[in-house]
């Protein structure tokens, strides 16, 4: 299948010599949700802006649905919807007019039924005749999404859609994204909230310092990188890890009441059976056993750290 977005060796340097993108390549298949994860200043917004035509690339190519974004910019841009990070709206204009404007700007003939559908989908229909300045922050963000969807794009960019948004609205936003996915829209969202990527993405890309460190299926990523921890809670506290258990590389915490063992879920032998047998043979009495899976956040922090260490 033809990718909906095909980015090849994209580079962007600014006038002051700052390299915001250092050769990013990325292919996105139709219908998936991909989350680009990275700290502030990693190049997430620059990547999106370049694909959308707001900034011009220094080198590299981008094709949207097979249309080059420079040579065939009309076809490419018609397929894209962009929800920017900042709430940029005409304060005195009415909700429905700004959405109509966006639709027209993208070359689609007026269609009140389509606009009504979008506004209803985003729970904005009751507010359609309100001036933008009368809306709450969350509602304004919905207007931005409505504008981006007004021309029925196939590829939607959500740049930090939930930055500074309360928990409830964040959940709403995730539902909206799920709904769009069901309609067949491909979604690229940037975020620095790991839980967001974890909750809604199919694939996760990690960006740091202008480089795409990896792009992987979310489940694979978590499984591959995922370390599990086994906490062995003891009835009586220990001073040190017993000699007999030294080979397991255990850490003693919780004032000597918990032994923590790290293992890889994908390994042939996790070593859990032997460990527990040796614990029992060492004469320790167990109170409880708990396992923990590392989150995307741990993985992400690990990756960015590795990168920083490699650089220094």
């Amino acid at each position, binding site marked *: 299948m033809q990718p909906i977005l095909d980015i090849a060796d994209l580079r962007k340097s*600014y006038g002051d010599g700052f390299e915001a993108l250092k050769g990013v390549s990325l292919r996105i298949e139709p219908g998936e949700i991909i989350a680009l994860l990275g700290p502030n200043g990693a190049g997430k917004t620059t990547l999106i802006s370049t694909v*959308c*035509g*707001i*900034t*011009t690339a220094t080198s590299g190519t981008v094709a949207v649905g097979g249309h080059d974004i420079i040579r065939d*910019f*009309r*076809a*490419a*841009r*018609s397929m*894209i919807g*962009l929800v*920017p990070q*900042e709430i*940029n*709206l*005409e*304060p*005195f*204009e009415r909700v429905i*007019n700004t959405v*109509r*404007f*966006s*639709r*027209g*700007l*993208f*070359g*689609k*003939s007026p269609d009140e039924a389509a606009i009504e559908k979008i506004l209803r989908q985003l729970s904005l229909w009751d507010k359609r005749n309100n001036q933008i300045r009368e809306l709450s922050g969350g509602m304004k963000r919905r207007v931005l999404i409505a*504008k981006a969807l007004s021309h029925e794009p196939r590829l939607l960019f959500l740049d930090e859609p939930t930055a500074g948004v309360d928990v409830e609205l964040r959940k709403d936003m995730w539902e909206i994204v799920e709904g769009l996915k069901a309609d067949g829209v491909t979604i690229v969202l940037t975020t620095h909230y790991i839980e967001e990527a974890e909750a809604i993405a199919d694939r996760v890309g990690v960006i740091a310092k202008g480089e795409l460190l990896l792009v992987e299926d979310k489940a694979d990523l978590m499984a591959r990188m995922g370390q599990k921890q086994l906490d062995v809670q003891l009835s009586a506290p220990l001073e040190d890890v017993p000699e007999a258990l030294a080979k397991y590389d255990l850490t003693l915490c919780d004032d000597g009441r918990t032994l923590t063992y790290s293992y890889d879920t994908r390994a042939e032998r996790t070593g859990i059976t032997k460990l527990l047998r040796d614990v029992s043979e060492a004469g320790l009495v167990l109170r409880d056993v708990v396992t923990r899976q590392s989150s995307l956040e741990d993985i992400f922090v690990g990756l960015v750290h590795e990168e920083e260490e490699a650089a220094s």
Partner: protein
Amino acid sequence: MNWTAIRAIYLFEMARFFRTLAQSLISPVLSTSLYFVVFGAAIGSRIQEIEGVSYGAFIVPGLIMLSVITQAISNASFGIYFPKFIGTIYELLSAPVNFLEIVAGYVGAAATKALFIGIIILITAFFFVDVTIAHPLAMVAFLLLTCLSFALLGFIIGIWAGNFEQLQLVPLLVVTPLVFLGGAFYSISMLPPVWQTISYFNPVVYLISGFRWAFFGSADVPIALSLMAIAGFTAACLLVIGWIFKTGWRIRQ
């Protein structure tokens, strides 16, 4: 051409105008009326006719030009500066439109607003003085070209401006003096020879002279020269705008 996009921009901009219709119209009508009261009735009665036209009527073309030029510049510059200021420019830059379509939408709307106000002032003038229009077609053509060319200049100013002060700077420091010294209230022939020569370097002189010719059939400079001046000015503005969009100056990084 993405006509739908041009139409969308045009209508969106016109909506802003109609939202503030009262203040858009009251201020030019009021200031024009004041000019007629002060220059036409109070001072004008002591001034003899200029080239066979009463002074009150003589200043009508200049007054219309003054308002039309100011309005065309301020509407167009604000129209494109405001999206830059509030950040909605992202949508224009990411839309499937080229620069000609963006310019057509914004400049078209600004020129329409200026034209609207020009016509209102002309109508106001009829209440105060006897105005005859010798060459109606030429009058309309001059009015349209002026609206268009100064809206283009306004568009450039709006792109260039980095803050609201700069937005006001060019109209205030450059355009208003040029219009006042461009013969809006007098004939160039009334000036001493040195100042006449200097005046011919003022592009607005050609505009006002041509426009006045359309009303009264007499002019400071030949009508062909006036037409060439405004055509040249329009072309220069278009070239600058073309360059702006090609290089992304002040809009696209």
